[in-house]
């Protein structure tokens, strides 16, 4: 809406052109990012939108998608490591992710449209720190961590720990997303992502919820996670530990869904009022948990199929 208000944009000279630098190694990229006025360029969607909205963008963009190892999904021991430059389309199509953490593959597969998913990288999507984004919600529920590289070494951050003084610092780069083993101590785990849309495609969700359920041998809840997006401070991980050890039935799921509605603060916008969204968070939490529990119960069956 540049024509609506004069705005404070600098006016004396044409905006300096943006340079795109293509480093050959991650170290080279980090060296470039150590200087001021630089930013990471992944799929470029965020920068394109920023330019469209005439928000100031750094003069030098360091392209990282071609760096060796940054765009692969690989197994490291019992964990899955997703390179930050992997596109959402690749994440959605990954057999390894779909088997271990369907919640993540599903969330990556419902972002915007296919064309946008083929551009957007998972690292860029997380680094945007946008509560309306899908993948961070699923990764929060899955207990993923971020491997962050800077000129001085590697750190590990939580997906929802990017903000604040201990968060992502200037010059740092998300190198990869690390997903934990699905079935700790031989439990059975299922996960699911649910997103509420008005027309079904290419829109920000009214509410979106990710759930994981791990069943102990006796069918009780060994681990429960629930993450909610498009709420204040989202994604928000809902605290469900009081429910552990109980049988995973509709009563437990209703309580968990109720807790999710009580512990999150959605906001009014074109997609709905906060009051409505609170009801929808409860409903979609119920749907995500129900599906996750269903998948957990079928884990053994599916593992046999996998073999």
């Amino acid at each position, binding site marked *: 809406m540049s024509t609506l208000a004069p705005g404070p944009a600098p006016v004396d000279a044409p905006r300096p052109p943006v340079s795109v630098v293509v480093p050959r190694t991650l170290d080279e990229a980090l060296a470039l990012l150590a200087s001021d006025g630089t930013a990471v360029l992944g799929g470029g969607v965020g920068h394109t*939108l920023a330019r469209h909205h005439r928000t100031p963008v750094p003069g030098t963009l360091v392209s990282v998608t071609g760096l060796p190892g940054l765009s692969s999904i690989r197994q490291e021991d019992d964990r899955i490591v997703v390179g930050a430059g992997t596109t959402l389309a690749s994440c959605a199509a990954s057999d390894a992710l779909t088997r271990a953490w369907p919640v993540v593959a599903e969330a990556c597969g419902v972002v*915007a449209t296919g064309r946008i998913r083929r551009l*957007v990288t998972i690292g860029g999507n997380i680094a945007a720190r946008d509560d309306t*984004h899908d993948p961070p919600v699923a990764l929060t529920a899955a207990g993923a961590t971020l491997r962050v590289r800077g000129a001085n070494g590697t750190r590990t951050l939580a997906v929802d720990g990017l903000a604040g003084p201990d968060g992502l610092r200037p010059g740092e780069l998300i190198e990869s997303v690390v997903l934990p083993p699905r079935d700790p101590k031989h439990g059975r785990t299922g996960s699911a992502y649910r997103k509420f849309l008005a027309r079904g495609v*290419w829109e920000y969700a009214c509410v979106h919820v990710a759930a994981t359920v791990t069943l102990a041998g006796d069918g009780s809840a060994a681990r429960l996670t629930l993450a909610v997006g498009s709420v204040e401070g989202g994604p928000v991980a809902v605290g469900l530990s009081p429910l552990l050890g109980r049988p995973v039935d509709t009563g437990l799921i209703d309580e968990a869904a109720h807790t999710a509605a009580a512990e999150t603060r959605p906001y009014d916008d*074109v997609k*709905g009022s906060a*009051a409505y969204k609170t009801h929808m968070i409860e409903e979609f939490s119920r749907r995500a948990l129900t599906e996750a529990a269903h998948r957990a119960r079928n884990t053994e069956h599916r593992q046999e199929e996998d073999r």
Partner: protein
Amino acid sequence: MSTTEAPPTGLDLGRAVLPPLIGSAVERIDAVEKVSGRASYAADTRLPRMLYGAVLRSPHPHARVLSVDTSRAERLPGVHAVITGEDTAKIKWGAFRPDLYPLAVDRVRYVGDEVAAVAARDLETARRACELISVAYEPLPAVLSLDEALADGAPLVHEDAAGNVAHEFSFDRGGAEQWFERSDVVVEGVWQTARQWHGSIETIGCTAEWSQDRVSMWVNTQTPFLARQRYATALGLPLRAVRVVQTEIGGGFGGKSGDDNTSVICAILARRTGRAVQMVNTREEEFLASRPRIPMRYRVKLGFTASGLVTAKDITVIADNGAYTGKAQAVLGAATVRHDALFNYRAVKAHSRLVYTNLVPTGAFRGFGNPSADWAVGQAWDLAAEELGIEVPDLFLLNAVETGSVSPHNHRITSCELKQCISKAAEAIDWHGKRANPAPHRGLAMGVSVHVSGRRSFGDYDGSSAIVRLTEDGRASVIVGEGEIGTGARTTLAQITAAELGVAVADVSVSRPDTDLTTHALGALASRVTYVAGNAVKRAAEQACRQLLEAAARQLGRPASQLWVADGVIHGPADADGQGPVSSPVGTVVRAELYRPNGQPVVGVGSFDNPSEFPDQSRYGNESGAYNFAAEAAEVEVDPETGAVTVTELSAVVDCGTVLNPPLAEGQVEGGIAQGLGMALTERFAWRNGAPTRPNYSDYKLPTAGLMPRKMHIGFADSYEPTGPFGAKGVGEISLDPVPSIIASAVADAVGVRVQELPITAEKVFWGMREDTAGSAAADRTDTAGPGGATREPAASADEKEGR
């Protein structure tokens, strides 16, 4: 409605045997250039030394403009001109009620109102220069809803419109009150529609260039001749000084009919710089300053006898004009009277007011008021069916008009297969089967609509004229000023010409409108081109064919009455002496006719004026020569936990007379349904201080394939319009009209919740199911919500933030 001695229906008229080309799936004549990307749209125009224009718009819904300082913008390298209201003729213009300056003079009246404009060497520079213009505003109290505008002592949007009423009319035909007193069942309700944007793929654009004292404008307008007239007024020029040429158009839907300032400003910039200037709306500008559908609030009262015969109808309509009038005045007329041509009302009464607000001006949109009327009146009929205990299709059949009916407003129905549409639509969706086997949370509804084929509203003329020139190489060149907005109109006209002449469609070309070169035409509005221009073109082709056969008669030695044209060749029988049969290609005959001594070109001229009346101030008068009809039925499923609506099945049966080109007609019907579903379910903004908070597609959800009915049945009534070209009527708008109303009624049938205001969001249905109206009031604010709403302030640069 008085049903006079019923004349024979179209079916009985012994309609002429139609040529095989009529009713066949002729490929679009512009298919290859569009699919291959060669079609030249507004922004594809390139002229030597062309500059680019940009506009600075008001950020206030209502303010006094104290001063405009353009000096910094003028100093920016690459800027060629900066203009304000002082650089214009300061003449107000508008289709019916001139109230719009090309650039603001002293006051701005909505967020998006044009204040200043720049022409520069490139778009980036022009936009940056706009940012350098300093405007001092004194904000004034604004009216940001119908209720605020109509409140006692409300601030006036225009000083000359007391009470903010821009236009008002009323009528009582047949004594409605007496009929209500004699009614056994009376239903009432209040329903409101919302602003809906056309959402064309291509935004509004213009390229202007002056030569001497004339300006040529290449514009993606639906109505080049009408636009020229208004542009000339706005520019303070005689009509002869303006030439408008139509470019390819990427979607019109009423939104490109020349009521906004973009082209006018472009022409002023071109004159000022002495260079060609191009201006194309951004998507944001399209949302802020085009002319979306008019929100209308209807209070409806319907009366019936116990047996289900309709007696009387009384409606009160208030329509949100926005800050300037455009075509809203005419739209309100149609929205008040058109639907009375559906049923045999004994009496109809109405009071309609067009109300100024400090919001985006509204105007023409596919349906032209009909979807709003059907949204309200259609739901009242649904309520009545429930109260009467009569199935909706049966109630419709009991009251529907027929061929020969005359509405209370003197709409004379020359062909009508409405009852056939109702029966076929019910059958297609298996109405009785579904009623017999109800499913939880599923609901069923039906609606009907009537539309015009051309509408007499721009002076006492709704005609068209055409020239068909046969060329020396055997082709037909159709010169007509109606144009093409993406519906396939030029293909249909080529098809009519080819059928009339006996040549191949591939040998027919149809001109683009150019006010210097083509015949005068009103253009693509009111579903008129097939019917009105089709008749004119058919008559021109008839005349050309007569000339051709007379020339061939001289050349081939057979009487013209014995000759016929097939596949581009003129044929004649053997003569009495056994000479013959004879034949000669069309091109050969045309060439020989021209090359003989005192020879003549073969050029046919045809004209057709809609056999209609210019309605009077109370909207009495037969607005069109032919009326098209439709019945649509929908089944929806409502998610009981969320309120979300899924359209599981929809049937639409349209009476558009003869279907000239089935795929094109089906495309119109399907497209109308899609646009109707967007209006019904998803298209809306959050508003703050008189403007959408995020005027782009991330908030405004156009329908996608995913919103379409899971099952869809499109059909056409067997019908023939005696005054139409080969029996055809218009088809461009009608399928949209009933959609919002049937979705609402089907939701009511499914879960007992009747939504009073568009769109039917899941949230409204949810609160309705919970009977928690307190929640919904705060939650789903209206389209014209004023300041202080609950909408969340979007974070800086948070627009379209998906997927970074």
